[in-house]
C-alpha cells in the first residue's frame, strides 16, 4: 500500500481517498432518501383523520434537548477528527465517546417521546400523518442508532490498532455520516416540530 505522507492520514492511500469519495456519493443517495420521506410527510401532514395533529402532540422541551445533544455531538465528532489529525489517540477516543453518549441520549429521548405519543393514543396505525411522522423520525433515529453501533466498532478498532490509515479513514467517514444526520435533524426540527407547533 503506497502511503502519501503529504496528505492527512485518512486520505493517504488511493483506497482511502476512494472510500471517502464513495461515501460522499453514498450521502448523495441519502439526500433523495430523506427528501422522499420529507415529501411523504408534507403530503400527509394535514391528513390526521380522527387522530391528533402535530400541534396537539409536539412538546418543545424534549425536542430542544434532542437538538442540543445532536448539534453538540456534531461538534465533538469534529474535535475527535481534529485530535486524530494531531495524533492524540486518547483525546480522540474521549471525544468520540462523548459524541456517542450524546447520540445515545438523543435516541433515549426519542424512544421516550415515541412511548409518550403511543400512550396518548397516537400510533403508527392511527392516521396517515402519524404513519409518516413515525417513519420519518424513525428512519433518522435508526440512522443514529446504527451510527452508535458503528462508532463503538470504530472505537474498539482504534483502541486495539491505534491511529492507522485504515482507522483514521473509518473515523473520518463516520464523522461525515454523523454531520449528515445533524443536517437532516435541522430539517426535522424546523419543518416537522417548529412548523407543527405553530
Amino acid at each position, binding site marked *: *500500500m503506497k502511503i502519501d505522507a503529504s496528505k492527512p492520514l485518512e486520505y493517504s492511500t488511493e483506497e482511502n*481517498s*476512494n*472510500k471517502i*469519495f*464513495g461515501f460522499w*456519493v*453514498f450521502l*448523495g*443517495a*441519502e*439526500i*433523495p*432518501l430523506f427528501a*422522499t*420521506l420529507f415529501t*411523504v410527510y408534507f*403530503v*400527509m401532514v394535514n*391528513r*390526521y*383523520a*380522527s*387522530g391528533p395533529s402535530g400541534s396537539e402532540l409536539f412538546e418543545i422541551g424534549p425536542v430542544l434537548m434532542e437538538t442540543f445533544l445532536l448539534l453538540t455531538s456534531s461538534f465533538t465528532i469534529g474535535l475527535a477528527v481534529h485530535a486524530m489529525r494531531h495524533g492524540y489517540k486518547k483525546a480522540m477516543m474521549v471525544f468520540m465517546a462523548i459524541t456517542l453518549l450524546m447520540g445515545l441520549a438523543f435516541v433515549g429521548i426519542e424512544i421516550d417521546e415515541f412511548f409518550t405519543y403511543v400512550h396518548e393514543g397516537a400510533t*403508527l*396505525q*392511527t*392516521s*396517515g*400523518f*402519524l*404513519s*409518516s411522522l*413515525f*417513519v420519518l423520525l424513525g428512519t433518522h433515529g435508526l440512522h443514529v442508532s446504527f451510527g452508535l*453501533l*458503528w462508532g463503538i*466498532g*470504530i472505537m*474498539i*478498532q482504534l483502541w486495539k*490498532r491505534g491511529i492507522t490509515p*485504515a482507522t483514521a479513514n*473509518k473515523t473520518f467517514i463516520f464523522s461525515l455520516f454523523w454531520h449528515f444526520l445533524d443536517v437532516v435533524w435541522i430539517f426535522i426540527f424546523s419543518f416537522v416540530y417548529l412548523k407543527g407547533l405553530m
Partner: protein
Amino acid sequence: MDLDKFKVHGEPLIYGAMVSIALATIGIIVGLTYFKKWRYLWREWLTTVDHKKIGVMYILAALLMLFRGGVDAMMMRLQTAAPEMKFLDAQHYNEVFTTHGLIMILFMAMPFIIGLMNVIIPLQIGARDVAFPRLNAVSFWLFFFGAMLLNISFVIGGSPDAGWSAYFPLASIEFSPTVGNNYYSLALQISGIGTLITGVNFIVTILKMRAPGMTLMKMPMFTWSVLITNIIIVFAFPVLTVALALMMFDRLFGSQFFTMANGGMDMLWANLFWVWGHPEVYIVILPAFGIYSEIIATFSKKNLYGYTSMVFSMLIISLLSFLVWAHHFYTMGQGAMVNSFFSITTMAIAVPTGVKIFNWLFTLRKGRISFTTPMLYTLAFIPIFTIGGVTGVMLAMASADYQYHNTMFLVAHFHYVLIPGAVFAVIAGFYYWFPKVFGFRLNERLGKHSFWWIVISFNVTFFPLFFLGLMGMTRRMYTYSEETGFGPLNMLSFVGAVGLAIGFVLLVYNIYWSTRYMPRDETNDPWDGRTLEWATHSPMPVYNFAIVPKVKTRDALWSAKHENIPLYDDKTITKIHMPSNTGKPFILGVIFFFLGFFLVFSMWIPAIVSGIGVIIMLAFMSFDQDSGYYISVDEVKATEKKLMRGETV
C-alpha cells in the same frame, strides 16, 4: 405460526414447478458432490471478488431469469391465444403477468446490464478492478438472493398479483391478502440495496480509476453511458427504497400511507413508484445505447460520429427522465396543467434520442460494415426502436392517451422500446464481449439463425398488439369472449411468442456448442476493436493489465494499431496489489434472504434473529484486516509468458 400460509393450492402447474425446483436442486447437489466441485465452487465463484467473475455470475443469473420470465410470457400468450381459454384462472394470470414484469425488468434486464458493465468497465478504462471489490460481491449476492426470494414466492405462499407497478389500494392487505406483495416489497428491497451499492461503486470506479490520460471526453461511449446510468441509480433507487418500506409498513404493520381511509393516499404510491420507475427505464436503456455505439463504431471501422452530442444527449435524457413520471397516469385525475407539463417533458425526450439515432446512422455512412451477429442486432435495433419511440410520442400526448391508456397498444409500445432497447443490446453485447471473457467466439452461423428467429418473431408477437390495443383490448385481461374479435391477432401473437422461445433456446444452444467446438482465439482482438478492453489477453488474467496503458486519444487501441500512437510509455512490470477472496458477502446475502423470508410471513422472532445476524456480519466485515495480497513481478512475467503462448491460467 400458521403452516397453511405456505401452501399454494390447486394448480397442477404449481405442483409441476415445485417438483421441477426440487429435482433441479437435488440434481445440482448430487452433481456437485459427484464431480467433487464444492471446493471449486466456493473458492472460485462464491467467494470471488474479481469483477470479471462477478459479472459472469450476474449474466448467468440474468439468463436464468430470462427463461423464468419467458415462461411467464408464454403462459400469458397461450392463455389469451383464443377466446374463453381455460389454461389459467384469473388469480394465477394476475400472478403471472406481475412476476413477468418484475423479473424481466429488475432481475433480467438490469442484472444483465450490470453484469456486462462489471466485466467490461474496468477493462475499458484500463483499471485493475472496481473501486470496492468486496462491496461489489455484496451487491451481487444481495441482487441474487433478492431474486431468489421473489422466485420462491411461486411455490411458497403465492406470488405478487397486483401488477409490476403494484398500485394501491389493489396491492394493500385488504385487496391482496396473500403474502405475494410482501414478497414484492422485500425481494425488491434486498436486491435494490444491492443495485444502489453498485451505483456508488461504479461512479467511484469510473471517476477515480481511469488509466492515466483518459480524460472524461476520451472515455469510451459505453463507459459514459454506464457513468450516467449509475448517477441515475444513485438518485432514483432511494425513492424505491422508501416506497417499498412504506409498502411494507402498510402491509405488515398496518400503517396508513396508501389506505383508502384514515388519511392514507393511494395516489402517493403511484407517484413514488414512477419517480423511481421512469428513470429505471433509462437505467436499462442508456447502457444499451452505449453498447450499440461501441458495436457500430467497431463494425463500421469508423470512429463514432458526434461523440460530444452523444454524451450531451445522454445527460439530457437522464435529467428529463426524472421529469416525466406522471405520464404513467394521465387518466387518474390530475388536471390539464399537470398533464400538459408532463406531456411536454415526455415528448422532449424524443429529441436527444433522435440525435443519437442520427449519430449512429452517420457512423454507418461510408463505413466498411461487417455484418456480424452483434452488428445485426444493432442494425435491427434502429428501425424497431424507432417504431417504439414514435408510438411513445403518440402515448405522450395526454389527450390522445385517454384512448390508448391501459390497452395492448401500450404493451406493444414498451415491448418495442425495451426489447430492442435492452434485450437486443445485452445479447449484442454478449456476442461482442464473449470472446474477451472466454477466449473464443460464439458460432456466427448459429448466432445468425437465432437472430432471425428472435427479430422476426418479435415483430410477429408484438406488432398485432398495437392493433389489438386500438381495437380496445385492455391489458391484463385474462380472457375475452369471441364476439370481441380479438382472437385471430392474439393467436398470431402466440405463434410469434413460440418463435421467440425457439430463438432464445438457439442462443443457449449456441453457448453450449461454441464452448465445445469453437477454435480458441489467438489474437485477443477478434473484432479489430477500438477500445482498451481488447488490449489485454482473452481471457484476461486476474490483474487485467500487466502494465497500465497510457491513453492519448479517444479510441486508444485503434490509434495504437493504426496511427502509431503507442499505448505504453514504459514497459516495466511492477508488483500488483489485488484484493483477496472472502465468503462474507455470500453469507450476508444468505442472511438477508432469511430476513426477507421471515418478514414475508411475519415471523418476528426469527426475523429479529436474522436482523441481528446482518449487523454481526457487517461488524465482521468492518473488523476484517485483510488488505489483499501482491502478485510479484516474476509471477506476472510468468503469467504473461503463458498467456502469450495461448495457454489459459
